[in-house]
């Protein structure tokens, strides 16, 4: 992801300089720093902090290391841009959030779909009251990469895919991988939190014994969430890696008592359609275009330059990621006890 961040974000913003890079693996560090022309290289964050010649840090380490690294950066008074998920559970995420807020540091989590302009437009339509009171929601995030895999071909699987199927390799399955995105997508668009929820997870058998080499294939492949939102609306949020015919598609349908919004996003592009006002009696849907929005990278740089967390509520900060983490944690609990839980 570090390379992707440079290509999509940091490398394109004027005045942003990659001053240093940290990795415990010398070969990875060398390759990254050479590719992107990073002058200073460190084998640990301690060394980088001791050197200190940087204004902000982006944390692109494995999920489990986010917490210790972010806490060190907060102690060193550095603004932080962290990959999602912020932490591996709600308690750790909350600790990071409170520490960052106490220190008054700019803090942000890279929920990449906040870069989709139509998502911001959908939220604006909802909050403007154009579709009235939101009543009913359907959201899905569908991928098909498990339906396409040949599980007898270990070599093909091992690099990119296997760790995502295995809890002891740090994966929380589809819930941790893309669930966080669709939950953010949904609750951001309608500007309402989830207040109660039920969730089921499922892990389908891929090979006899559910194991390939060192990888135990125990992470969830699919989830379904039934949710109630802050304003009383109800909805369903679901996801699968088995959805043949969808390489990476998010779909959000929001129905209010004065209009509806349907938003689809995938590798193919984005489509935002609205039925409201005079179109309600005929159920006529119209495409709505959205003005471009700043990327997470740009908004983080703006905030660091201003020296304060942006006043805009559209910035995915640590607190936001912590709320999402609570939902993810409860999803696991609900799957075990098969009950609804209050968030």
């Amino acid at each position, binding site marked *: 992801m570090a390379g992707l961040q440079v290509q999509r974000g940091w490398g394109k913003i004027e005045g942003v300089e990659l001053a240093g890079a940290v990795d415990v693996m010398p070969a990875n560090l060398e390759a990254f720093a050479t590719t992107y022309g990073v002058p200073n290289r460190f084998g640990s964050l301690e060394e980088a902090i001791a050197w200190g010649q940087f204004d902000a840090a982006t944390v692109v380490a494995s999920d489990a290391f986010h917490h210790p690294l972010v806490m060190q950066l907060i102690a060193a008074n550095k603004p932080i841009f962290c990959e999602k998920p912020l932490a591996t559970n709600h308690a750790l995420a909350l600790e990071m959030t409170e520490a960052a807020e106490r220190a008054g540091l700019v803090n942000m989590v890279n929920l990449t779909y906040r870069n989709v302009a139509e998502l911001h437009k959908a939220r604006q339509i909802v909050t403007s009251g154009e579709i009235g009171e939101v009543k009913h929601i359907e959201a899905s995030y569908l991928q098909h990469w498990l339906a396409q895999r040949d599980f007898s071909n270990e070599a093909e699987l091992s690099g990119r895919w296997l760790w995502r199927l295995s809890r002891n390799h740090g994966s929380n399955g589809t819930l941790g991988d893309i669930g966080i995105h669709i939950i953010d997508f949904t609750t951001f668009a309608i500007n309402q939190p989830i207040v109660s929820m039920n969730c089921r997870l499922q892990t389908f058998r891929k090979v006899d014994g559910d194991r390939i080499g060192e990888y135990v294939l125990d992470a969830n492949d699919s989830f379904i969430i039934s949710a109630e939102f802050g304003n009383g609306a109800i909805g369903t949020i679901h996801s699968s890696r088995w959805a043949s015919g969808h390489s990476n598609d998010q779909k959000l349908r929001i129905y209010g008592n004065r209009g509806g919004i349907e938003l689809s996003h995938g590798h193919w592009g984005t489509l935002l359609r609205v039925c409201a006002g005079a179109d309600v*009696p005929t159920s006529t849907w119209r495409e709505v275009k959205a003005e471009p929005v700043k990327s997470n990278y740009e908004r983080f740089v703006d905030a660091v330059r201003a020296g304060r967390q942006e006043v805009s509520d559209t910035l995915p900060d640590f607190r936001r990621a912590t709320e999402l983490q609570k939902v993810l944690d409860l999803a696991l609990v609900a799957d075990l006890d098969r009950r609804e839980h209050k968030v």
Partner: protein
Amino acid sequence: MRMLILGTGGMAKNHAKSFAAIDGVSVVAGVDVDPNRLDAFRAAHDIPHGFASLDAALAWGEFDAVANVTPDSIHHSTSIAALKAGKHVFCEKPLATDAIKAFEMVEVAEQSGLINMVNLTYRNVAQLQKAREIVTSGQIGTVRHVEASYLQSWLVSKAWGDWRTESQWLWRLSKKHGSNGVLGDIGVHILDFASYGSGLDIDHVFARLKTFDKAPGNKIGEYDLDANDSFTMNVDFSNGALGVIHASRWATGHFNELRLRVYGDKGSVEVLNGKTSHLKVVMGEDIETATWRDLEVPPVPTNYQRFAEAVRTGQMQEPSFRHAAELQKVLDLALVTEQERRELPTH
């Protein structure tokens, strides 16, 4: 086949027209407690005999089968009486007002060896039948994930009339007027769409129902507006696949639209039924590029036609009383899970 139409209000005209149009079928009598309604109905559909009660019609006995178009709460007693008198029964949905009653009807029907079917109208959608055929023939592999929705917007749009003033809509919002809300009204259709289309039985269900505030004190005249407007369901199926099934009367932009998406490990199907019907599939080589194709599907026999054929051949056809009773069980459980806020097994 000589048909008797039991109950001549509401849906009965569809039954009279549809059965009369089938070769070898004649509608020979109507039954209604309201003589004026019965006379008008007989006149409109050219029906020779009329009776004020099912008992009177059974005493006469000159018919082979009954189309049961009585109010929901009367289905149980009348279907059982007809079956016990040796008549085949084609019953409107819902089969009964709860699963216990529905299974009593199943027992009588199955012991009788007579044809028993329930008019789940969306079985007439050719695209649904074709989708099931594709799924059950194994063309999309093992089903992993299902999404089904039934979206209406009559609480928002006035295209069907104004629910605030019209009794034909108000009663559907009120429990004591016999409504079980959107769950009772269209829930059975989308449950059938999901389970029939995917070829799978529902094993566990968690449902939430919601009744939104609609009027001061949630009351309009004699109508307490307390029946559910929306529901969401988390389910799992017999093979472990997960699914979401949901419905709402608030889905602005959709007058009356059913959608089913069934995802398998070798392909997927998507059925859309609104003003028109569509079937989209992705399978074979197309799954690598996520290329969906529209399938043209020839019409299928209607439930009316299949019932007539079942009676003619003596071979049962679906949807049977048993199938409808299984769906009723899920609907009953949905009400319990809303109270208890936990998932429940269907058997």
